[in-house]
């Protein structure tokens, strides 16, 4: 799938994040200096992304989040079959000295978790939007997605967060 990237306009505020960029075309090489924000996804103010694919929504944390957290060394995920609530914590990522809650942007039932993250938690750093996905959820309320930010809004949100 071809993905269009939105590059942040505040190069100095958003840190270099090159690890996730290996799959990008040279046309977007300038954006390798910024945290990546992908088109086609929705974003929560707590820096999780959601990709709606048919009956299932895929959830992970953004490039901005993984960059600020540092090297992820452990990931705690829920069980399949459990329920998640919009805005509620569903797991955590540990990065060297800190454990950080990960919050679900939508409510629903967890139908699959990314078991690769047990052995290779660093996928969240190297591939936050692809191999580093965390859970797949069957949404219980389609309107949850509507209240989330689009790529442009999220980019602006990140810029404002860096400035303040």
């Amino acid at each position: 799938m071809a993905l269009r990237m939105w590059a942040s306009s505040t190069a100095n505020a958003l840190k270099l994040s090159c690890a996730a960029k290996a799959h990008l075309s040279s046309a977007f090489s300038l954006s390798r200096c910024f945290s990546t924000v992908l088109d086609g996804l929705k974003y929560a103010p707590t820096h999780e992304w959601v990709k709606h694919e048919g009956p299932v929504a895929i959830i992970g944390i953004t490039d901005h989040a993984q960059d600020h957290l540092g090297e992820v060394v452990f990931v705690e995920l829920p069980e399949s079959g459990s329920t998640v609530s919009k805005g509620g914590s569903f797991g955590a990522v540990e990065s060297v000295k800190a454990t950080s809650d990960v919050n679900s942007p939508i409510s629903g039932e967890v139908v699959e978790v990314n078991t690769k993250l047990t052995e290779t938690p660093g996928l969240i750093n190297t591939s936050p939007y692809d191999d580093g996905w965390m859970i797949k959820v069957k949404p219980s309320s389609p309107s949850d997605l509507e209240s989330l930010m689009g790529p442009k809004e999220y980019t602006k949100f990140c810029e404002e967060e860096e400035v303040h």
Partner: protein
Amino acid sequence: MTKIQAQNVGSPLMNLIKLRGVPILQQLHLEEKLLRTSSDNWCIINDGTDDPTVVMGISGKPAELIEIEPVLQDHMPVIKRFTGGGTVIVDQGTIFVTFICNKDLIPGLQPYPRPIMNWSSILYNEVFRGIGKFSLRENDYVFGDHKFGGNAQSITKNRWIHHTSFLWDYDIKNMAYLKVPKRAPEYRLARGHLDFICCMKDYISRSDFIDGTTKAVGSHFSLNSTQLASIEVPSNAEFTPSTRLLSKQELEAAALSQTDESSA
């Protein structure tokens, strides 16, 4: 009103709890509860803990981090705490300082590990001004290149905790319960425990450190001294701590896995 409070009228409020010799499990349960159920800011200072205890981070694996046979033999308690970070052995020579804060407490401070860690070092720079060569080295507090304070954090949606175990003094024989971790800071340079750490008592007295920390916190916030018994959290706050003591069975199973790996 004290002079510090008068100077800080209008500063955000920080509840200060000073404890002495409270068991580390009780302290961690309190901290986890305040992080998850309170909406106030807290600074907790616990001057020593009663019994020597091994405390691992949230993802710690006993087989990789501790010498299980002597731990079992000597009935050394092992706790898995709710924050990240490494493994420590704490006792009466350890001084604990904890900050539990709302994410908007400090203007401009982003609720991520590095900014919080840097903020803490600014505060402790005030405490250790003129005392040793204090700095934050990667994620540790050091004098020169010797660690005397280990940090760990947990960050939730709206709050964060940053807690530190300061080695005011330690019992050399207790270090034998800990393995050299696979993941170590670069500046450690493969040094063993005794070559890597140092004692705060060689630099500052217990009371000076605690008074200095209280003063430094008071210069940033409006302090409200609180007693442990008077802490109130919302009555509808449901909470079960994740911090727990590992059972003998868990440690024995870890010892078996350690033996299986070494004979494989």
